[in-house]
């Protein structure tokens, strides 16, 4: 009898290999990559137009500005503080043998011999801090050619800190009796909405009276302070903040704001920035300390800084230099005769003082050769707001 042995059952389907499981860390990395790509794509939608639209800024500076304007101000300030602290200049070193040449001629040079014209007020030369003094140190020079006996803008340079014999401060003086001050919005600062923004440059019809232009202070985003433009409040005004005020008719002043969030009579513009660094002829006692200097580069960090003061006769004094603390800048302005002063922009990217040697904004030149922004800066659309100094109507060049 034959025995029938049952065949082992054939597998009906080929057994599948179980799928190889990805380690958890690789899946976590994949999730992170997806999140990262998504965030970068969304950020790029905002960053690309911002960088492409910047007419006179490099990609790096435009990107930093974009980061500041989109919530990244504390990050930028931290990085800047860290960078500038790492690159702090050393004290001492060889002294300078000459100063950069500013202006076209010394005050008093080439004027009429007869002495018939009335002697106009001219500020006293700045007393040098270091000795022996260098040729032309602290001596006012006319900024414009053929400006006559009462030049509207004077320029000078001097070494402001004996501990740092290579630092040179540039100072400009603007005659309050012959000039008027205008606030000009940039193409991006102050931010929208803003009526009558203009094209972010000195209006062509005003250029025949233009004698100087300079940077306009922190953006509203970082200053946390106010702005009045054309008699209207653009940003809430804050009491106790240093304010450059322009009045209807072209007059100007630098004051400690105390009018609250309203527009006092005759005020045409008012730009605020941090507390006064000089008040009633004295340095602000908190210059070396305090959070009042805002969410920006620390007040003790040495960096390009600029400031604007007013002297006892109502004339404007602008000062700028590299490697300055708030305190050293205030000392520069005080030495030049300022009785009240406000800190303006910091960093080499924003610090500009440009004077024009000929009528019609002819032959523009930077106050200091290290100011790297083009002297044509405010004759073409600029991102940031600035101040323009014009001769008063009817005043001869």
């Amino acid at each position, binding site marked *: 009898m034959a025995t029938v042995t049952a065949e082992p059952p054939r597998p009906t389907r080929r057994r599948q290999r179980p799928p190889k499981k990805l380690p958890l860390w690789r899946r976590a990395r994949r999730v992170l990559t997806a999140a990262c790509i998504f*965030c970068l794509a969304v950020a790029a939608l905002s960053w690309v137009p911002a960088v492409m639209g910047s007419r006179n800024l490099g990609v790096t500076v435009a990107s930093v500005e974009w980061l500041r304007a989109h919530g990244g101000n504390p990050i930028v300030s931290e990085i800047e503080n860290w960078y500038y602290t790492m690159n702090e200049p050393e004290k001492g070193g060889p002294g300078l043998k000459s100063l950069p040449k500013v202006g076209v001629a010394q005050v008093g040079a080439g004027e009429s011999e007869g002495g018939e014209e009335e002697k106009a007020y001219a500020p006293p030369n700045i007393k040098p801090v270091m000795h022996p003094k260098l040729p032309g140190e602290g001596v006012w020079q006319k900024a414009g050619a053929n400006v006559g006996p009462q030049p509207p803008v004077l320029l000078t340079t001097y070494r402001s800190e004996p501990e740092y014999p290579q630092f040179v401060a540039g100072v400009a003086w603007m005659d309050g009796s012959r000039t008027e001050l205008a606030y000009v919005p940039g193409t991006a600062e102050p931010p929208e909405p803003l009526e009558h923004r203009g094209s972010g440059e000195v209006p062509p019809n005003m250029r025949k009276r233009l004698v100087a232009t300079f940077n306009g202070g922190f953006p509203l985003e970082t200053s946390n302070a106010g702005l009045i433009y054309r008699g209207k409040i653009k940003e809430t005004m804050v009491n106790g903040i240093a304010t450059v005020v322009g009045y209807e008719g072209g007059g100007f002043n630098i004051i400690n704001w105390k009018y609250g969030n309203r527009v006092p009579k005759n005020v045409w513009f008012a730009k605020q920035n941090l507390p006064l660094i000089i008040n009633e002829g004295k340095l602000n006692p908190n210059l070396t300390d305090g959070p009042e200097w805002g969410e920006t580069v620390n007040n003790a960090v040495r960096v390009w800084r600029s400031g604007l003061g007013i002297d006892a006769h109502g004339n404007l004094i602008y000062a700028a230099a590299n490697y300055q603390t708030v305190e050293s800048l205030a000392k520069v302005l005080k030495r030049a005769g300022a009785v009240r002063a406000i800190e303006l922009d910091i960093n080499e990217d924003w610090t500009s003082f440009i004077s024009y040697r000929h009528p019609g904004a002819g032959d523009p030149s930077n106050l200091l050769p290290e100011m790297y922004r083009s002297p044509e800066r405010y004759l073409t659309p600029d991102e940031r707001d600035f101040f323009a100094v014009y001769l008063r109507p009817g005043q001869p060049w």
Partner: protein
Amino acid sequence: MKVPRNVSPAAAARRSLLLDITIGVFIGLFAIILAAGIGVVGFFGLICALILIPWYLIEGGMRAKRRQPRR
């Protein structure tokens, strides 16, 4: 509609990839909502990218080297 349970390894891998990407997008969305601004998100996104890209490149390079036949 039910999602089939037994799927090929390739389909399972695709499914897990889709899930991971969805989770990633939600995390990104959450970060954008929480952050002070899109600049902050972009900044940290860039830092992450600067870490992840070399990581992938090094890993890919090492894998390619391992796959090369030894002589």
